[in-house]
């Protein structure tokens, strides 16, 4: 029996099944729940590792199931899929550990971890989708499975945030659906193909294609928090910290950005999209979002809100890299998918630690916190410098390739955007670091939960330290094989140079 056919499906199932089982467990079966969660995560990591090795050696992993007459549910592992799958699987593992610590002793953990697993299932499905309808299916599933996490606390504020989230994402979903059906009625296929599948259409369809591009990008831009569709993201801050981490680094925002990458490369094809004249406006929009998000972040005193605006800005790097439409910029954009994830999840873990341990929620309360929680703040510092783009942290690599790629494609203005964004990032991150390390701590913290002689619980401390170490490591060792950068180069090679 040929197992290659079923591995993508098994990767999806490895979080779906634990999730479904967890829903049926009794609340007090904490140990079994944790075991199931971690078992799923380990199995998934193993399978993904297998596929990474296989794809590197030009193996094909593809699951096809009939969905509709003439349309199939396709799960396929290509280089781009695997980049995202690996990211979300690895970060899922870390976030699960973190969430177990974070939710220690709180209620409804079955529901939380059940939907958490569903959320990752949807993300992995998004990543592995081999055609647009499969993508759409998992994309909507992602919307649905994040909603209960967002309103998990059951407060009125949470309900409102959930409502805002749904208004944005379901509207986006409707646009995406319209674009998808329209495209299907024109082309009769939705299969992701390198360099796109629409180049066969004559020029009389150009205006329709431009409309479809706008619909698809608008639908995906909601989740990617592209200006002016970003409004839900700062409001979603009421959710528990692991959920924020999930929204910002692992699943939702990334699914949107990843979708845009897919649409530009594998639906339209870079060259066709450039010929249609749609990539330049997208690049401008991304550039504007980068600056806009950073400027808004400057004015936030709430730490999580500041990080949220920072996400809005950072995710648009990915879109910018894709929209510049050159091989080197592609490397920068695609690799930032991973780099931003690692750095941002570190920052959110740290913010969660501050809130859980000392009940610090605002930047203005962070004076001297580095002395009380050195490990947490060290991780935060690495994440923040990475965001600014300081070498040798991962963020620098992304910016370097984005800048080079822009010059290579003759888009010199992008350099100004990159410099401006770095300056702004420095302006909103450095004051935090200054407060944390160099100001006197207050006589009393808002609250101080003691964890023996440690600064906080192990399950809370380890994840940010590990992700920060990774963010540093893949920056330092970027040119080794199987780093995200190496993999992004593989993707760019297959997209631009291979037949």
């Amino acid at each position, binding site marked *: 029996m040929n197992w290659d056919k079923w591995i993508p499906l098994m990767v999806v199932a490895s979080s779906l099944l634990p999730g479904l089982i967890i829903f049926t467990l009794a609340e007090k079966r904490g140990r079994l729940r944790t075991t199931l969660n971690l078992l799923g995560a380990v199995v998934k990591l193993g399978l993904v590792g297998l596929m990474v090795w296989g794809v590197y050696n030009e193996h094909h992993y593809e699951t096809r199931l009939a969905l509709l007459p003439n349309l199939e549910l396709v799960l396929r592992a290509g280089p781009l899929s695997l980049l995202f799958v690996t990211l979300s699987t690895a970060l899922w593992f870390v976030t699960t550990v973190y969430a177990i610590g974070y939710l220690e002793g709180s209620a409804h953990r079955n529901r939380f971890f059940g939907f958490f697993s569903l959320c990752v299932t949807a993300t992995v499905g998004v990543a592995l989708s081999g055609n647009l309808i499969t993508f759409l299916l998992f994309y*909507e599933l992602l919307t649905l499975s994040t909603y209960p996490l967002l309103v998990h606390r*059951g407060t009125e504020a949470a309900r409102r945030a959930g409502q805002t989230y749904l208004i944005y994402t379901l509207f986006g979903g409707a646009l995406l659906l*319209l674009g998808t059906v329209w495209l299907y009625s024109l082309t009769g296929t939705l299969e992701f193909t390198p360099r796109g599948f629409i180049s066969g259409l004559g020029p009389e369809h150009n205006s329709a294609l431009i409309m479809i591009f706008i619909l698809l990008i608008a639908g995906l831009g909601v989740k990617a928090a592209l200006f002016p569709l970003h409004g839900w993201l700062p409001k979603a801050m009421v959710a528990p910290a692991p959920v924020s981490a999930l929204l910002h680094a692992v699943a939702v925002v990334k699914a949107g950005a990843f979708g845009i990458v897919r649409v530009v490369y594998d639906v339209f094809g870079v060259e066709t999209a450039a010929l249609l004249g749609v990539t330049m406006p997208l690049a401008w929009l991304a550039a504007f979002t980068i600056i806009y998000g950073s400027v808004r972040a400057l004015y936030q005193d709430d730490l999580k809100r500041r990080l949220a605006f920072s996400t809005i800005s950072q995710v648009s790097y990915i879109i910018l890299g894709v929209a510049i439409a050159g091989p080197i910029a592609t490397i920068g954009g695609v690799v930032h998918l991973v780099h931003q994830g690692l750095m941002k999840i570190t920052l959110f873990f740290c913010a969660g630690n501050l809130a859980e341990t000392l009940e610090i929620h605002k930047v203005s309360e962070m004076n001297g916190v580095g002395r009380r929680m050195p490990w947490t703040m060290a991780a935060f510092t690495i994440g923040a410098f990475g965001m600014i783009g300081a070498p040798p942290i991962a963020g620098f690599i992304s910016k370097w390739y984005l800048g080079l790629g822009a010059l290579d494609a003759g888009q010199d203005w992008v350099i100004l955007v990159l410099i401006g964004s770095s300056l702004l990032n420095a302006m909103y991150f450095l004051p935090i670091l200054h407060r944390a390390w160099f100001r006197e701590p207050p006589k009393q913290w808002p609250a101080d939960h003691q964890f023996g002689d440690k600064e906080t619980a192990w399950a809370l401390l380890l994840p940010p330290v590990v992700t920060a170490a990774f963010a540093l490591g893949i920056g330092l060792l970027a040119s080794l094989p199987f780093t995200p950068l190496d993999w992004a180069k593989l993707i760019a090679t297959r997209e631009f140079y291979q037949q």
Partner: protein
Amino acid sequence: MHETLSQIPWALVLILLPLVTGMLAFLWPRLAIPLGLMTAAMQILAVIGLGWQIHSTNDAAYHHAVGGWGAPLGIVLYADGLSLLMLTVTALVGLGVSIYSVEYFQREQALRFWPIWLFLLAALNALFLTADIFNLYVTLELLGLAAVTLTALAGSKAALDGAMRYLLATLLGSLCYLLGVALLYHSYGTVDISTLAERVEATPAVWAALGLMGAGLILKTALFPLHFWLPPAHASAPAPVSAILSALVIKAAFYILLRLWLTIFSPLNESAATLLGLLGGAAVLWGSLQALRQTRLKLLIAYSTVAQIGYLFLAFPLAAAAALSTWNAVAYLALSHALAKAALFLAAGNLLCFGGHDRIADFDRVVRRLPITAAALALAGVSIIGLPPSGGFIGKWLLLETALGQGRWDLVIVMLLGGLLAAAYVFKVLGHSFTEADVMHEAGAVPKIMEWSALLLAIAAVVLGFLAVPVLDWFGLGEVVGIRAVSS
């Protein structure tokens, strides 16, 4: 074994079994519950048997002359893909509702519920197996009367009021239909559908018949603007009855309309299709907006039915150019709507049982206290909205694809707006079931069986999203609409 199974006249079983068990349940009320459950389970088997018979005769329609007497004198039972579809819906929803009702109805009410419910099943099955327009009338009338009786079962003032309106509407609808039948019989001397289809011409009498029958059926289907009777009736009835009414009874009237459309009327008239599409679009928007405005769950669900019926009518103007994909879409929408809507009403019944009210804003942490019911609401809601993965999505996708293929942007926009509005009203309910209510109240106990039967129906609506190919194959609607299905 195989031989004997294919020898049994399953179509007759489908009609006679509920009829006989209904009478027995009336005579020996103590046996009502086992009889009801047995009938519901047997129906599933009978539908499979009938489907097998149709398939083993190379997809030709199934004919059975009762007592050896054929048309025009005797009664002929007839079944094709469309009948099979409706019988399947009835069997599935019927089983779910029956299991639910075991716990829902107590003493007095149970005595009355079971016999009438079994009669209603018999009428429904007979309706879907009929090949002439007069017998359609008879079964339609039986169905209407049984449905009205069930509506009044709660006995409250609101229920009697709703039932009364329902009675008037259903009688008026049947009367119009009967007048149309009389006109056709007078003109052509037959009530057999296939014979009529051959003979019918565009004469004034036929036009009048079309108008009368159409108007009567539209009233019974509760298509906008003739939906006025539906919300009070569906909202005031006991929960399982609401489920039956919304999922099955109005679908029966729609089935007749569709059947007549496919055979007798569509060759005659294109502008009627435009009108139906227009009304369907209005129904989608109006029903959804009204649903959004409601503060009570059952009324919200009832208005949602008005909206969902609209989708079925959107198909009429599209069918002329792409019959197969359009009717496939309608089949899928009807099937998944029936399952999802039944689940919603049953879940609403659980909430009523639990909190003693169905005020949406006062739902108190339902997600935590009744997780299974909340899951049923959510999953059924997903299918109603038409989000993937669900049966509702498949139906909507097929319909959207057809509409876009024909450049019908008006219909496309209506469908998308309808989906968004549906999302708004579904999540209005779900959002409030996460939060705490201002007013605390004593919680009543909800039997697990009631929770699970709602959830299973909802799960069925979602799972349908992955079964499009086998399901559409099984119904083989191509034959019904005169197109040989292209095997993939």
